C-alpha cells in the first residue's frame, strides 16, 4: 500500500476524525448512567482509532517529504483549503498521539467516576484536535485545530481535576490562547504577503525552485505547493504551509524573499505561541499548575503530546519559513539561553518540589529545554535527537504521570512525604518506575539516552559551552529523579502504605507498551530514526544551506534542485 493509495482512502481524515465520530456516538447513543458501557466503548474506540494510524508506517522513507496528501476545496473566498499531509516528523508524532490516546483512555478506567460520558467525549475531542494539528497542511486549518484542542483540555482540567483545578484550567486556557492569537497575526501576515511576493516573476521562479528542492522527487507534494503558488500568483491568498516554507527558503539573488526585519517579527509571533506551548522559560508557569491539577489522563496527554505541539511548530514554521531570523545570532542566543535555562532551572526547581506530580511537571520543562536546544543547534544530529526526544519524552513522561496516577488512585495524595518503602509492597510497580526513571535520566540502552546523546553531540558541535551547560542537566536529572525514587520506594514501609496493592493487569496493559518502546528505541533506534532522517535533513538544509546536502544526495530519492539559481551551496 503506497501512500498515494492510502491517501485515496483518506487515511489521514479517518485518523483525524475517528475520535470525534466516537464522541458523537457517545453523545447520542449512550445514556449517562451506563458507565460501564461507556468505558468499554471508549476504550474500544480508542484502540480502533489507533489501528488506522499504523497505516502511516507505510510512509516512504526514501522519498521523504509530505505524503498521504488530501486536498479538498474548503473556503475558496479566502483560499483556505482542507489539506492534510504528513512527513516523517509528523508520522511519528501522530503515532505517538494515537498510542498515548489509547493509554490515556485506558488509564481513566477506575479513576473517573462522575460525569463519565462527558469525560470520554472530551477526551476523544481532544484527540481529534491534536491529531488535526499534526496533519494539517493549511495554516488556517492548523489554527482551527490548534484552538480546538484548548477547550477540551480546559474542561478536562477544570471539571475532573484536583482542588485547585479552576485556577489551573483558566490559567492554561488564557495563557495558551494569548499566544495563539499572536500566532494568528503572524499567520495572517504571511497569508497577505504571499501573493504580493509571488506575483513577481523572479520570486515565483525562486519559490518554485525551493519547492522543487523541498519536495525532492515527491511529485504530489510539489504539485500541492505549485497550485498554492499559482493561487498566489493570481493575487488570491493561500494558507498552504509548504508553500510558505518554499517562500521562506527561496533565494533571489542570494537574498531571502521575506526581509529580515519582517522575518523577525513573524518569528516573534510564532515564537510566542509555541514557546508558551513547549513550554520555554519564562513562559512555563502554567505547566506545573495544569499538570498537578489535571486528572491522570489529562496530564498524560498534556505532557505526552500537547507539549510536542510547540516544538513541532518550531520545526514546521519557525525554522523553514523564517530561516534567516532563526539563524540570526541574537535569536539563536536568546533561544539557546532560554533553552538552557529551561534545562537547568527546570531541574533545580524539580528538586525542590514536595508534590510528586509537580516534580514530574518540572522535569518535563527540563526535558523540553533539551529538545529546544537541539532544534536551535541547526544540525542534523541535534535535530534528529530533538525529534526522537519528543517521542521519548512522550513515552517516559507519560509513564511517569501514569505512575503517579497509580499511587494517587490508591492513596489519594500526591505528596512525596506520604510515601515510603513502596518497593516492598509493590515490586512490579517499583520495576516499572525504575525503568522509567532510568529512561528519563538518559541511561544507555533506554530511549532517553539516544535522544540526549544526539542532541548534546550536535549542540557540542555548535557551541562547547552550551553543551557543557546542557550536560549538567544529566547530573541534575539523576539527582532529582533518584532522590524521588529513594524517598518513595526505598526505606522502611510507611504504615499506611502497607496495604497498597501492586499493579493490576489493566495497569500492566498500559505500562507494557511504554516499557517495550523505551527499550526498543534505546536498543535499536534505527527504524524510528529512519522515518524522519530525511525530513530533518531537509529542514536543516533549509535553515543552513550546504550542511546536509551530501546526506540528501546520498540518501537517494533526494534533492534534485538547489535552493536558488544564484546561491552557491558550498560547505561552510
Amino acid at each position: 500500500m503506497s501512500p498515494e493509495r492510502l491517501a485515496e482512502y483518506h487515511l489521514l481524515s479517518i485518523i483525524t476524525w475517528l475520535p470525534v465520530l466516537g464522541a458523537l456516538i457517545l453523545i447520542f447513543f449512550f445514556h449517562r448512567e451506563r458507565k460501564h458501557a461507556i468505558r468499554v466503548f471508549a476504550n474500544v474506540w480508542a484502540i480502533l482509532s489507533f489501528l488506522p494510524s499504523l497505516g502511516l508506517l507505510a510512509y516512504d522513507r526514501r522519498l521523504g517529504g509530505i505524503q498521504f496528501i488530501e486536498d479538498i476545496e474548503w473556503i475558496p473566498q479566502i483560499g483556505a483549503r482542507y489539506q492534510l499531509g504528513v512527513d516523517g516528523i509528523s508520522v511519528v508524532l501522530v503515532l505517538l498521539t494515537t498510542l498515548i490516546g489509547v493509554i490515556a483512555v485506558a488509564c481513566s478506567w477506575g479513576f473517573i467516576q462522575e460525569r463519565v460520558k462527558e469525560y470520554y467525549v472530551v477526551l476523544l475531542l481532544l484527540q481529534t484536535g491534536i491529531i488535526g494539528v499534526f496533519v494539517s497542511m493549511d495554516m488556517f486549518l492548523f489554527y482551527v485545530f490548534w484552538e480546538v484542542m484548548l477547550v477540551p483540555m480546559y474542561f478536562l482540567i477544570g471539571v475532573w481535576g484536583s482542588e485547585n483545578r479552576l485556577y489551573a484550567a483558566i490559567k492554561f486556557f488564557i495563557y495558551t490562547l494569548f499566544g495563539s492569537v499572536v500566532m494568528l497575526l503572524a499567520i495572517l501576515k504571511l497569508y497577505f504577503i504571499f501573493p504580493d511576493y509571488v506575483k513577481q516573476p523572479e520570486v515565483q521562479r525562486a519559490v518554485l525552485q525551493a519547492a522543487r528542492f523541498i519536495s525532492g522527487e515527491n511529485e504530489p507534494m510539489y504539485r500541492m505547493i505549485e497550485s498554492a503558488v499559482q493561487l498566489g500568483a493570481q493575487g488570491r491568498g493561500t494558507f498552504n504551509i509548504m508553500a510558505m516554507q518554499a517562500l521562506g527558503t527561496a533565494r533571489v539573488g542570494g537574498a531571502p524573499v521575506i526581509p529580515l526585519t519582517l522575518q523577525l517579527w513573524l518569528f516573534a509571533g510564532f515564537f510566542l505561541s509555541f514557546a508558551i506551548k513547549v513550554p520555554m522559560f519564562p513562559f512555563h508557569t502554567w505547566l506545573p499548575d495544569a499538570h498537578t491539577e489535571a486528572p491522570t489522563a489529562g496530564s498524560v496527554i498534556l505532557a505526552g503530546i500537547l507539549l510536542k505541539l510547540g516544538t513541532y511548530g518550531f520545526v514546521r514554521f519557525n525554522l523553514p519559513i523564517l530561516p534567516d531570523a532563526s539563524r540570526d545570532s541574537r535569536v539563536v542566543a536568546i533561544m539557546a539561553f532560554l533553552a538552557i535555562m529551561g534545562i537547568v532551572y527546570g531541574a533545580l526547581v524539580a528538586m525542590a518540589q514536595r508534590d510528586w506530580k509537580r516534580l514530574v511537571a518540572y522535569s518535563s520543562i527540563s526535558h523540553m529545554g533539551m529538545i529546544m536546544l537541539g532544534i536551535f543547534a541547526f544540525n542534523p544530529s541535534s535535530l534528529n535527537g530533538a525529534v526522537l526526544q519528543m517521542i521519548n519524552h512522550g513515552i517516559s513522561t507519560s509513564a511517569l504521570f501514569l505512575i503517579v496516577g497509580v499511587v494517587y488512585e490508591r492513596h489519594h495524595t500526591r505528596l512525596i512525604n506520604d510515601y515510603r518503602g513502596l518497593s516492598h509492597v509493590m515490586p512490579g510497580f517499583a520495576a516499572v518506575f525504575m525503568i522509567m526513571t532510568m529512561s528519563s535520566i538518559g541511561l544507555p540502552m533506554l530511549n532517553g539516552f539516544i535522544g540526549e546523546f544526539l542532541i548534546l553531540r550536535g549542540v557540542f558541535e555548535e557551541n562547547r559551552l552550551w553543551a557543557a551547560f546542557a550536560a549538567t542537566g544529566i547530573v541534575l536529572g539523576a539527582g532529582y529523579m533518584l532522590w524521588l525514587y529513594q524517598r518513595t520506594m526505598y526505606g522502611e514501609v510507611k504504615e499506611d502504605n502497607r496495604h497498597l496493592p501492586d499493579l493490576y493487569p489493566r495497569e500492566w496493559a498500559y505500562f507494557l507498551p511504554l516499557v517495550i518502546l523505551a527499550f526498543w528505541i534505546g536498543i535499536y533506534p534505527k527504524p524510528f530514526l529512519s522515518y524522519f532522517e530525511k525530513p530533518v535533513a531537509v529542514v536543516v538544509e533549509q535553515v543552513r544551506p550546504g550542511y546536509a546536502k551530501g546526506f540528501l544526495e546520498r540518501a537517494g530519492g533526494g534533492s534534485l534542485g538547489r535552493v536558488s539559481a544564484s546561491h552557491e551551496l558550498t560547505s561552510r
Partner: protein
Amino acid sequence: MLKMIWLIPALPFLSALFLGIFGRTMKLSERTISWIACGSVFLSLVLSVGAVYEFATSYWPTHGRPYLSSEAGGFPHSFTWVPGGEARVIFGPEAGKTVPLRIEWSYQLDQLSAVMILVVTFVGFWIHVFSIGYMRGDGGFYRFFAQMNLFMFMMLVLVMASNFLMMFVGWEGVGLCSYLLIGYYFHWNYAAYASKKAFIVNRVGDFGFLLAMFAIFSLFGTLHFTEVMELARSDAYLPSESFGAWGLASWIALGLFIGATGKSAQIPLYVWLPDAMAGPTPVSALIHAATMVTAGVYMVTRANVIFQKSPTMMFVIALVGVATAIWAASMGFTQTDIKKVLAYSTISQLGYMFLACGVGAFAAGIFHLYTHAFFKALMFLGAGSVIIALHHEMDMRRMGGLARFMPVTYRTFLVGWLAICGIPLFSGFFSKDEILWRTFSTDVIPGGRWLWMLGFLGAGMTAFYMTRLVALTFWGDPRFVVAGGSGTTHGHEAHAIHGVRESPRVMTIPLIVLAIGAAISGFVGWPKSLGGTNRFERWLEPVIWHPAQEDAVPAKLSGMEASVAEHHVAEYLLMLASVALAVGVMYTCATLYLRRRDRLEAIVRAIRPLYVASANKYWVDEFYEGVFVRRLVLGLSWFSWRADARGVDGGVNGSAVMTVFWSKVSGWFDLYVVDFLVNAIGAMTKLFSTLFRIAQTGFAQNYALVITTGLFLLTALYLILSW
C-alpha cells in the same frame, strides 16, 4: 570461537532477563537460579578463554589488528545502532568536513580487552559461586543474581566495546547495576542513600566523559577506537603538547579523566565507594574491587594515545593517583568496619594504577589491575565469609582470633594480605614494584622521584593498615563473644564461641581459587630485571603507543644494554627498599596491635588530631554534603523554586491581577461613562414622550377636533396662498 564473542556478554544478559522476569513468578528454587546464573558466566568464561586463545594463536599473527565482530562473517555485522544523520568535524585538519554519524554496535577483541574479559569472567564467575552461599536464604535471591548477571553483561560490553559510545553504554550500565546492587537491601535507609550517592557522583564523572567524547568525535569524525587511536598518533590531528602547555589534547584528556575519577573513585569523586559497602559483600568484591572501578583505568589505557599527547594531564593523573593512594590509605588506618577498610584500600590501589598510567606505564597499570582483581576480590570474599560466620558482624573491634575458627578463610586471606603488601613472589609484589620502578624512572613527566617517594610511602601505609586488618580480624583473642550482633539488619544475642564455623565449600572453594590466583598471577609479569621477559607487558605492546620509540631507530643491542644494566641496579635497590619497608611495617604493626597495645594507645594519643581527622574521613563527605549538595544544588534548587513560584509565576499571577484591576477600571468606565450616555438617550426619549403623550387623551372626539382643526387650517392656508 572468535565469531561467537558476541555471546560472551549475551549469555549473562539472557540469564539476567530470564531471572528478572520469571524469577519470582515461576518461584524458581535457589538451586535453579544458581545454576542458571553461574552457568551463564561460566560459559562466558569458557568462550572468553577460547576466543582469546584463537586470537592469540591464529588471528593476530595473520591480521595484526584487533578483531571486530562487525567484520565479514562476524555477528552481528554492521549493526548500525545509532544513525544520526550528518555531523561536522570542527577541530583539526578536517575542520568543516561533513561526516556521517553512524555508531556501530560491534565488539572488539584485542590484547587489552582480552585481559579484561578474562579477568572479568574469571573473577566474576567465582564471585557468583561464592554468592550462592552468601545470599542463601535471602528473599531476593533471584533479584540478586539477575542484577549480578546484568552487571556482567554491562561490564563485558564496556570492555569489549569497539567505540567510545558503546563503552559509554557499558559505563553507565555498570553504574546502574551498581546502583541497584548497592541498594539491594533497600529497606535500609543508609543503603538507599548510598546507592543514590554512588549513581550521582558517577554521573558527575560521566558529564566529563560525555563532553570528551563529543570533542573526540568533533576532532576525528569517528568514535571507533582503532580509527581514533590511529589518527591520534599523528600530530596533524592532535598536536603533541609539551609539559605545562594546555591544548586540545589536554582538554579531551581532562574530560576523560574526570569520567575515570568518577568511576574509579579518585580524588575528588571517590566519596561514593566507601558508602557503597552497604551492598552485599559479593557486590563489593565484584563491582567495587575487581571490575567496575577498574573501568576508569581500562578507559585511560584504551585512550592512551590521547593522554600521551598531553604530558600536563599525565602529570595531573599521576599526581591525583598517588595523592588518592595516600589519602585513602590514611583513612584505612582508623576505620573499624572491615569492608570500609577494604574499600579505602581499593581506592588507594586504584590510585596506584592511575599513577602508573600517569607516568606512561599503562601496561603496568593494567598489570596491577589484573593482580589487584585477584587479591582484592579474595579479601572481600574472605571478609564476606567472616561476616556471614559472625552473623553479619562488620565491626572489626568485635572480631579477632578467627584464625582458629576459620582456617581456610584465614589462610586464603593471608595470601591476599601478602600479595597486597608486596611480598616477593606474590602477585602484588610484581605489579606494585613495576609501578614504583616506572614512576621512579619515568621520563614522560618530571618529578618522578618525588612521585615515587609518595608511592613508596603509600606502600608502607598499605602494609600497615592491611596488617592491622588481619591482626584485628584473625589474630589475637576473640572479641566477638562480648558484643551482640551489630549487623545492620539483624539483632542477635551474643553467640558463643563454638557457634562460629568455617563457611561452606561453596564459599571456600572460590577463596582457594582466588588465593592461588593471587599467588601466582604475578608470574606473567616477571620483570626483565629479574631475568624474566615480562610477558604481560609484551602482550599489551600493540595497544600502547610509544611515541619516543616510534621515531627512534629500534635500538637493539649495544646502546640499550649498558643503560639496561644500570637501570637494573636501581630497580633492585628500589625493590629491596619496598620489601624491607613492607616487612618492617608489617612486623611493627603486628606487634603494636597484638602485643604492645599500650604503645599503640600512646601513639594514637600523640597524634590524636590526625587520628580523629582520619577516622572522620577528613570530613570530606560532610563538606560535599554541606557545600555542594546542600548549599549549591539544593540551595539553588530552593532559590529557583522560590523565584519560580514568586517571581515567574508571580509575574503570571501579577498579570492576572493587573488584568483584573484593569477590567474593574473598564467596568467602572463602562458603567458610569459609556452607560451614562446610553441612559441619557433613554432619558431624553422619556422626556419627549412625556411631552408628546399629552395628546393621547383616549378621547376620540379630541382626535376628531384636531383633525378638523387641521383640515380647516390647511384649507385656509390654501385659500390664502392661492389668493
